[in-house]
């Protein structure tokens, strides 16, 4: 009897907090939509704090996964060995060709004075965790801000690109995999006829990402190579990603790297270098080219203290108008007066 009375009283009191908490949860979802990185800092602190534990726990789990994989491979080791020998012979031919082509490309670049590719600095990291959840496919690395890892950088292994850094803490970082639902990468597809097509590769939590924003008139073929395009300047161009595979819902990308088995990866630090300004000689200055005397260097003008004068409203002219008002007679550097008049 006592229990029933207590239960009824509690239930009626619990309705109000439940409604408030429900409203708070809805607000949290909407806030999360507006501010995607709401929990990022807390998430990284927890991962940093758990790094030693994760490192020690991951070794037996990785061993178990390797053992699971090896039992599957045991039954087809002979066929795989034959296929590998065949592939190795073909790759040696390709390697020879690549060495020749690399030398030729360097000669052409030297002849054309081509701007060299920006250098990449990389950080070697170990995978200390990986998770596959309905809304996120990720792996955790044991390198973070203190090692120079920054969000947005590409993560590759020996086979090709795996993903990019999503969050970087002090000692750990999270990688968003190419297969993840939220992954969007600008790619370039090298077609057989020597052309390259631009597209966006979109993850959908399946093993093979989709290709988006492709032109309707292009013709693709199975086996066409997909590399990063470098558009946007976040990722280096030319990173090997995979090859095209035709499926029932269009072309997908069979990835070269297997994120599930990667143990050691490289984080590529890439910042597109700003285009260097060409050296300009005095003869190329517009004033000299027009037959005028060049203006003196700014240091010569500082001998006269400037006078602060409020500009009239009509003085605030656009740059084009100011250039049009250049006097037609030769400029005399010694004729500069404190008030700016000749």
């Amino acid at each position, binding site marked *: 009897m006592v229990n029933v009375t207590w239960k009824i009283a509690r239930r009626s009191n619990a309705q109000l907090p439940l409604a408030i908490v429900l409203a708070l949860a809805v607000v949290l979802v909407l806030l999360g939509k507006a501010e995607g990185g709401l929990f990022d800092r807390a998430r990284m602190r927890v991962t940093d704090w758990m790094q030693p534990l994760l490192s020690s726990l991951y070794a037996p789990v990785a061993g178990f*996964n390797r053992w699971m994989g090896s039992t599957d491979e045991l039954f087809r080791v002979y066929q795989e060995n034959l296929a590998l020998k065949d592939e190795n012979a073909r790759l040696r031919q390709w390697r020879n060709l690549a060495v020749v082509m690399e030398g030729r490309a360097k000669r052409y670049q030297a002849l054309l004075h081509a701007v060299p590719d920006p250098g990449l600095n990389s950080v070697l990291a170990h995978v200390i965790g990986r998770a596959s959840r309905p809304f996120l496919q990720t792996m955790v690395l044991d390198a973070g801000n203190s090692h120079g890892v920054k969000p947005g950088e590409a993560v590759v292994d020996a086979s090709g690109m795996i993903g990019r850094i999503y969050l970087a803490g002090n000692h750990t970082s999270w990688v968003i995999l190419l297969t993840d639902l939220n992954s969007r990468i600008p790619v370039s597809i090298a077609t057989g006829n020597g052309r390259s097509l631009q597209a966006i590769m979109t993850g959908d939590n399946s093993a093979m990402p989709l290709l988006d924003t492709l032109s309707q008139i292009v013709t693709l073929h199975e086996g066409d190579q997909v590399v990063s395009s470098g558009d946007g300047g976040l990722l280096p161009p030319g990173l090997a990603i995979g090859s095209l595979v035709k499926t029932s819902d269009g072309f997908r990308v069979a990835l070269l790297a297997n994120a599930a088995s990667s143990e050691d990866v490289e984080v590529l630090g890439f910042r597109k270098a700003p285009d260097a300004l060409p050296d300009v000689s005095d003869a190329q200055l517009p004033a000299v080219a027009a037959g005028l005397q060049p203006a003196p260097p700014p240091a010569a003008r500082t001998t006269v203290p400037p006078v602060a004068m409020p500009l009239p409203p009509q003085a605030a002219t656009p740059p084009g108008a100011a250039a049009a008002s250049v006097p037609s007679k030769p400029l005399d550097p010694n004729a500069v007066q404190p008030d700016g008049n000749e």
Partner: protein
Amino acid sequence: MGASDHVGSLMTGRIFSALVPFLCGVLGVILTNMPLSLGGGLVPAPLLGLIPIYFWCLVRPDLMTPAVTFAIGILQDILGGGPPGIWTLGFVLAYAVVSRQRDVFAGLSGPGAVLGFATAALITCATGFIVMTLLYHMPPLGPLVGELAMTALFYIPGAYVLGAIHRHLVGPLRSDV
């Protein structure tokens, strides 16, 4: 003096017993979100944080309040890495449905009890799917169904462990209520 000691230990015991469901939820969330996937991600992680919510919502709802459910949900969102708030809303909605139909759910036993919990897990996963579809983009159903199945499967050992904790820890400390 003896009486005050007794009251003090009683209060400590009550506070500790009130914390046990929350701590079990926290432990479940931490275990769920350890980034250690077996079988190369083939086995999805179950939502272990939902098991204490469901269990104590039926057995002792005064120990599993909406605020505690909300806190466990936020922790799941922080550690889970998905869009913020999705699991919080899913947990709170499941809690709301279960607490409103508490007599029905509490009357289930055997396979029915597992189905009851599977209903709560379904509400949570469906909430996540709907919110994700409405606010972001439609996620594939396969991983979500896998997570739902694993969560329902883990309820059997989970309820056994929580039952033992409740009988040996929470029950004796709250026997005066």
